[in-house]
């Protein structure tokens, strides 16, 4: 399998596309089949072999465009009005490679800069980045054409960096850059702090030394022309350096874009939710979605449970025809494992609000496997917010909930009374009731007897408390009176905890 492909698959993996070994072998065969000639065909083919969901296809398209974009090398715009160029205005007749590219509509751009994929003909959908390049060229056109007379003798891959730069030969420069990057093993770049080192190494590989020497010789002459020449080369060198830096940054992003994100997600999933910064809210939201998706994938299959001792007569007869109708192989009746009905009673006052937000976000992201979720919110009085969540988006519904039910002193007694009025009749042996709250009832009667009633009827009652266990029953916390009526009471402080709770909810649901 070609090195390019291996690199590409690594970049894909970094972009959260899961590629198995067998899939990469398939990709190798695909590339053998379609070759690198046609960008679009290659993209479609690899896309079907490597990306297997809608989201993966999106990441794939993005990575493909980034990875196979050989267009970074623009002739430094600075040169347009540089002093050295105007007098070089000979050889107009020679058509430059870049001159040909300019008029073509975004496809030709690849030709100029595609060392490992020569002769691409139709690259319709890769147009965006290439278009930008072609667009950039006509601007530098008149000057470039003047310079290009050197591009002839100095064929692509020519050794002399200075000549290439003077010629503005983007293709040759790109090739030299790619080659230097390969030799310095740029694909091993992991940290952004390594950028400087790689830039320097690549420049050295490309022949920075010759440039410095040229500057030195030019300036040593001491004449005005010499100084000007030195200045000119200096500018070219700076331009080159900027471009190499761009290239390195691009590669860094390609290979490590998600590594940082992953680390951040890892940390965020374990941090206490009340400590989450506002700016991380978006990441957390995505994280919740991701976790929810995982849980859905794990639980989307409907499980069956055999009922021992109940004969399924119909199936047994059908199955035993092959034994001449002797009832030899017995089939028992089985029942499907139901999805639990969930009722979430959430405290939305002050410090607990943040947890409520994420619990509800979780529950509602799971609508595929948890079809029946009812949500109730309270601080003083309790109200049902199910409709709100079904109609509005999660974010808006949460804001609305906070607005209507939030604020005010927590009163568990009142809230439980309200709940009993509203929904106690609907609690049955399929229902799981989740209470989320810190159990601090501001010295009001907690009415644990109502919770006991709920517990009698419901399949389970789970109490989630954001506070660590050591703080339970301190101050006005009345967890002591609640815990006997819960099947489980546990601390739930981070996303990881939440995930564990919800996962258990799904797994053991009957």
């Amino acid at each position: 399998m070609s090195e390019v492909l291996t690199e590409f698959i690594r970049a894909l993996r970094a972009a959260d596309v899961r590629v198995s070994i067998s899939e990469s072998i398939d990709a190798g065969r695909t590339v053998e089949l379609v070759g690198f000639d046609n960008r679009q065909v290659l993209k479609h083919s690899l896309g079907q072999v490597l990306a297997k969901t809608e989201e993966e296809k999106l990441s794939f398209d993005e990575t493909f465009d980034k990875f196979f974009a050989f267009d970074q090398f623009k002739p430094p715009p600075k040169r347009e009005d540089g002093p050295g160029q105007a007098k070089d205005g000979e050889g107009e007749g020679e058509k430059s490679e870049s001159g040909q590219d300019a008029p073509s509509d975004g496809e030709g751009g690849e030709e100029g800069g595609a060392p490992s994929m020569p002769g691409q003909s139709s690259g319709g959908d890769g147009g965006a980045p290439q278009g930008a390049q072609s667009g950039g060229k006509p601007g530098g056109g008149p000057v470039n054409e003047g310079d290009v007379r050197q591009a002839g003798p100095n064929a692509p891959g020519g050794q002399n960096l200075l000549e290439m730069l003077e010629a503005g030969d983007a293709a040759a420069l790109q090739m030299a850059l790619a080659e230097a990057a390969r030799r310095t093993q740029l694909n091993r770049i992991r940290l952004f702090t390594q950028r400087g080192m790689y830039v320097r190494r690549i420049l050295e590989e490309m022949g920075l030394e010759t440039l410095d020497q040229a500057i030195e010789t030019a300036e040593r002459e001491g004449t005005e022309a010499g100084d000007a020449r030195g200045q000119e080369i200096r500018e070219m060198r700076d331009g080159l350096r900027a471009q190499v830096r761009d290239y390195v940054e691009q590669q860094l992003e390609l290979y490590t874009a998600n590594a940082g994100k992953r680390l951040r997600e890892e940390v965020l999933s374990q941090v206490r939710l009340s400590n989450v910064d506002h700016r991380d809210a978006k990441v957390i939201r995505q994280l919740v979605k991701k976790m929810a998706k995982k849980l859905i994938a794990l639980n989307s299959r409907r499980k069956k449970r055999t009922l021992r001792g109940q004969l399924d007569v119909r199936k047994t007869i059908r199955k035993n025809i092959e034994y001449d109708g002797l009832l030899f192989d017995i089939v028992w009746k089985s029942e499907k494992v139901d999805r639990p009905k969930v009722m979430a009673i959430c405290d939305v006052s002050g410090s607990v609000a943040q947890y409520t937000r994420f619990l509800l976000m979780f529950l509602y992201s799971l609508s595929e496997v948890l079809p029946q979720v009812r949500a109730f919110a309270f601080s003083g009085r309790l109200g049902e917010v199910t409709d709100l969540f079904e109609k509005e988006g999660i974010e808006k519904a949460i804001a609305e909930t906070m607005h209507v039910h939030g604020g005010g002193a927590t009163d568990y007694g009142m809230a439980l009374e309200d709940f009993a009025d509203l929904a106690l009749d609907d609690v049955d042996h399929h229902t799981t009731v989740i209470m989320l709250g810190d159990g601090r009832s501001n010295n009001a009667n907690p009415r644990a007897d109502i919770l006991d009633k709920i517990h009698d009827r419901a399949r389970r009652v789970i109490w989630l408390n954001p506070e660590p266990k050591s703080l339970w029953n301190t101050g006005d916390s009345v967890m002591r009176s609640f815990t006997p009526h819960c099947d489980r009471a546990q601390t739930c402080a981070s996303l990881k905890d939440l995930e564990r709770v919800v996962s258990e909810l799904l797994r053991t649901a009957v």
Partner: protein
Amino acid sequence: MKPEDEIQAVREGFAKGGYICDKQIATSIFLSRKLGKPILVEGPPGVGKTELAKATAEYLGQELIRLQCYEGVDEAKALYEWKYGKQLLYTQVLKEKLGDLMEGTVGLKQSMDRLHEFDDTFFSTEFLEPRPLLKALWSEKGAVLLIDEIDKSDDEFEAFLLELLSDYQISVPELGTIKAKSTPIVFLTSNNSREIGDALKRRCLHLYIPFPDSKLENDIIKARVPDVEEGLRKQLVAFVQGLRTLELKKHPSVSETIDWARTLVLLHAETLDAELVRDTLNVLLKFQDDIENVDGEINALTTQAQKASA
């Protein structure tokens, strides 16, 4: 032939049969034939997933064998079953003939040896009732096998398909392994009512067919409903495309656009107007809620569609 030419050839072949597709789809057919891999086709309902298999069968001149999946589909319905009735009859016949066969044998051992001289015909292909999967493997000329709505089946069945999909062979305990006579082209379609397992996905090429863009949809209508005039066609496609940008329970798919085009031809319509749209909207939208929601937008969408075609 270069790959892109072959892909183009597939497209043209499909177009002849009235199935208009983009390069993506043609590429997947090309790849599937060359790599010998099944294609898992996903996408919203009604974009022509099943139709793709039919078109492929027609294009290649091969038989289309279809297996519709549902909850509870199992080996007996998908792969093979023994013809129990025939086996019973055979036993009866055997009993009668047994006397003749055993003539001249002495003792149990000899009779058993005599019996063993005859093959174990009881579990032979004679008595095998092939179901779609086995039919596809037995097909001499190769076949197009369509496993429709795989997401509706149970995961046991999904696991059972793995052997077939990766090696084009299946194991029948009594007979051993049956290999495909010629590799069939396999399509699996899914509406994503549940996540398909990774193992299955890994063995397949993955093709996602989205709603077509207006140019492609235009071509499709042109091929499918040739009677509709160009002006009207552009308008109705623009209208449907507009409809898909709205928030709806179910967006109209290609099959619905085709139905609508046919309806409009039947009504001898020449241009779209709001009245006409209102009368025929139930062809496009299948939920009363959607129809009510769209009602307010009809005028705007119609004008937009008229403009688009101008």
